């Protein structure tokens, strides 16, 4: 049983352990396999076919399993490593220790967005990005979208998702009018500055690779999704009678049949079912 900690409570030795292990996974070539997997399973709801990872009820269990696989890969290198989480409602400025030189490094520079501090800076020599999407090879961030500034999600905004008593709702996609999943994932309406809520807004706020298909190129991806994973726990505690939905395989006349995954259907690529991911308590715990 291992513990995932709030990144703000990590000791400098724990930060170093995490960073060193991530760099080793990258050196081995395994890290980029995780990035490719995320790209591969990002299918949008305007397209036909199964949506396992995003814009779908299985957004939460899919990412739980994905993070677990990533964490296991780290632990094969160093059994003591765990993925920390970033509570972006609290550590919500570029001054947070998360972004310091000894952990993830800071914002990108204004000229080209390049991150120049910390172990993931291109100049440090251990974090080259080569994925066929863009020609640039360096990690990029643009905190708060300087061209049209936005803030990280607030506690109130998160509460708006956490207060929702239903897990998900038809049509089980990014247009679902209610449901915790879509409110947390963040595909909801509003003005330009507010409409990308919670999970999506955090990707938007960090910018650079975190905003695109290859978001896991930025190691903060894992800390962000670990917090999303913890939020699912908190939501379950707050709504003990709520269940994952849909509970049954969608009927033959449902337009989402074959696209949205019900609780006992397998999620690619692992064939794990959402029902196997509803609790992580036998695998790991959070410090909060």
């Amino acid at each position: 049983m291992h513990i995932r900690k709030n990144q703000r409570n990590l000791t400098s030795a724990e930060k170093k352990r995490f960073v060193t292990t991530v760099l080793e996974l990258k050196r081995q070539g395994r890290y980029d396999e995780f990035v490719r997997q995320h790209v591969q399973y990002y299918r949008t709801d305007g397209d036909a076919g199964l949506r396992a990872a995003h814009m779908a009820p299985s957004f939460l269990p899919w990412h739980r399993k994905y993070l677990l696989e990533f964490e296991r890969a780290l632990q094969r290198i160093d059994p003591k490593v765990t993925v920390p989480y970033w509570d972006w409602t609290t550590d919500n400025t570029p001054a947070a220790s998360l972004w310091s030189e000894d952990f993830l490094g800071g914002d990108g520079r204004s000229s080209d967005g390049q991150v120049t501090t910390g172990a993931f800076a291109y100049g440090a020599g251990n974090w080259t990005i080569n994925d066929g999407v863009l020609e640039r090879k360096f990690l990029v961030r643009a905190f708060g979208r300087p061209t049209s500034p936005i803030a990280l999600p607030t506690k109130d905004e998160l509460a708006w998702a956490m207060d929702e008593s239903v897990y998900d709702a038809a049509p089980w996609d990014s247009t679902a009018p209610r449901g915790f999943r879509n409110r947390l994932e963040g595909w909801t309406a509003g003005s330009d500055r507010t409409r990308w809520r919670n999970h999506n807004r955090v990707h938007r706020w960090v910018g650079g690779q975190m905003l695109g298909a290859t978001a896991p190129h930025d190691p903060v991806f894992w800390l962000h999704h670990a917090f999303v994973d913890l939020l699912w726990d908190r939501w379950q505690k707050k709504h003990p009678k709520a269940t994952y939905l849909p509970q049954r395989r969608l009927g033959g006349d449902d337009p989402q049949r074959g696209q949205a995954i019900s609780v006992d259907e397998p999620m690619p690529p692992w064939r794990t079912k959402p029902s196997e991911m509803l609790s992580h308590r036998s695998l790991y715990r959070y410090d909060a």
Partner: protein
Amino acid sequence: MPPPPSSRSRRLFLRAAFALGAIGGTAAALLPVLRADPREAGPPPTEAAGPPAEPAEPIERAELFDEMYGGRHIQGTDAGVRIDGRPLHVMRRADGSYLSVVNHYESFPTALATARAAVDDLGGAQLSLAGPASH
């Protein structure tokens, strides 16, 4: 396995372009060249239960564009969206809006808005000529 990126992007764009004409105020204001090929149209977009900004109505035309934006040459052609001649992979949402490979966590009402947003977020970087392997 998905089909090769070029044909897939093209197919997606054509389907997207067909459904699009509908979507937008901004697109209409820019006087896009209009064309139609109903054979390329996919199934009708899912009724948007969420609150998309613009009403969707069936209309048989597509938005094509060709302009300089932020110092970059952006084009919407029937072969897809391009920035400085390089393919920008775009995907559709059920409400008819678009995402691009550069912006996967927000969406835009038109292909043109998607291309402009990508320029804003590229920070001067060039898209790869090959396009993303898995898209």
